[in-house]
């Protein structure tokens, strides 16, 4: 591959990102009833990956303090529930770490109740738990949160519907194309089989990628259980041109 000198280039050498197939759940998933009036009906149009798409907000350092990664702090006492350490890396699918990227998480308390005005589940709020945290990945793409294990909770999707315990994760990555919001689940949850959101992901291997694993080496004696979970974003294509006819 040759690179044109910048003075003569009218073309821009930009990275391109893989368009994932079979990874994400179809928007049209009728078993999850809220999709019925919200999932767009028409096929999406192909958007070429230009500068707006291969760049993205590289922000967060000014928005985050070390205390934000500890969801058990900041109040008069510790929250109720099982204290856990949750750590892992943000990578792209080529295995490259994604450093300095903003992670935002939110979750229910140990009783399965969110600190949100819309949540009317008959379970107690915890005055010592807000349920939101954030951090930046380090230079190796690593993150680490301290929190409590969230409880399962009922919802009205179908008769006797319960969400498996989960933590919501939002990740920016380094490009608009890599933006991801997902949910992390806990190993062995008996509620997986009846949950249409977890099962909206068609590929069983992809579903497993949403489940963290218990890790004794992360666990701290006499203090907290440790769990590992890596988040894998879209990787870059090699030298891929958007249009087959677009040769130099």
């Amino acid at each position, binding site marked *: 591959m040759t690179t044109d000198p910048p003075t003569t280039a009218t073309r*821009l050498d930009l990275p391109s990102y893989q*368009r994932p197939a079979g990874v994400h759940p179809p928007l049209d998933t009728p078993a999850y009833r809220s999709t019925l009036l*919200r999932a767009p009906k028409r096929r999406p149009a192909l958007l070429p990956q230009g500068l707006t*798409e291969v760049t993205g907000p590289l922000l967060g350092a000014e928005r985050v303090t070390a205390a934000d990664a500890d969801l058990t702090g900041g109040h008069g006492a510790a929250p109720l529930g099982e204290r856990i350490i949750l750590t892992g890396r943000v990578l792209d*699918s080529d295995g490259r770490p994604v450093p300095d990227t903003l992670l935002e998480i939110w979750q229910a308390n140990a009783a399965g109740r969110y600190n949100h005005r819309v949540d009317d589940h008959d379970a107690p709020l915890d005055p010592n738990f807000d349920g939101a945290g954030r951090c930046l990945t380090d230079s190796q793409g690593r993150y680490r949160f301290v929190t409590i294990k969230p409880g399962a909770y009922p919802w009205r999707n179908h008769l006797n519907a319960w969400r498996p315990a989960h933590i919501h994760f939002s990740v920016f990555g380094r490009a608009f194309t890599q933006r991801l919001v997902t949910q992390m689940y806990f190993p062995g949850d008996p509620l997986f089989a009846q949950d249409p959101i977890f099962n*909206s992901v068609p590929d069983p291997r992809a579903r497993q990628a949403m489940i963290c694993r218990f890790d004794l080496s992360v666990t701290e004696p006499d203090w907290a259980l440790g769990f590992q979970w890596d988040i894998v974003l879209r990787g870059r294509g090699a030298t891929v041109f958007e249009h087959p006819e677009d040769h130099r």
Partner: protein
Amino acid sequence: MTAPPAKLASLQQTPSQTVGPYLALGLSWPDGPFVVPEGSAGAITIAGRVLDGAGDPVPDALVETWQAAPDGTFAHPDDPRGAGPAWSHGFRGFGRSATDPAGRYRIVTVKPGPVPLPDGRMQAPHLDVSVFARGLLERVVTRIYFPDEQAANDGDPVLGTIDADRRGTLIASPEPGAGTGVLRFDIRLQGSRETVFFDV
């Protein structure tokens, strides 16, 4: 830039899941709507509603925008042209607004400059938009174009791929009676006027 590993491992990507109804708990920023600092000269407000297939407001959505500076540059290592001066004067490029109970969002920004595609063709000023909501298992992506850029819009290589009768869903409109600094852009997830969404 770091070189890829010698043997390209293809790791299993993490699937998307819905933000659920309580997204505001984790994703609300007090300064979220401000792509430029509050009170900036020349700022425009882009406001609208997110609507479902019944035409009802979506009160649990999040709208995020990403755009070039007024000179068309990005403060990002993958923009080979480098960042223009706006980026050192409080321009963030990124906006975020959770919808209110009436489904309304708003972003306060400035109009971006035109942005070239890799092949050199020029795109009209635009914002890339991500919409997240309860009921959306993955974000949907759209674009906002500007009503006072008709010539640039007519020549835009992305708008040109969209059926003429749907192109209008991507162009903001002046808000009647609201002055020159306010544009309206409604996002319709379904229905006869469903917004054009993109596979990015």
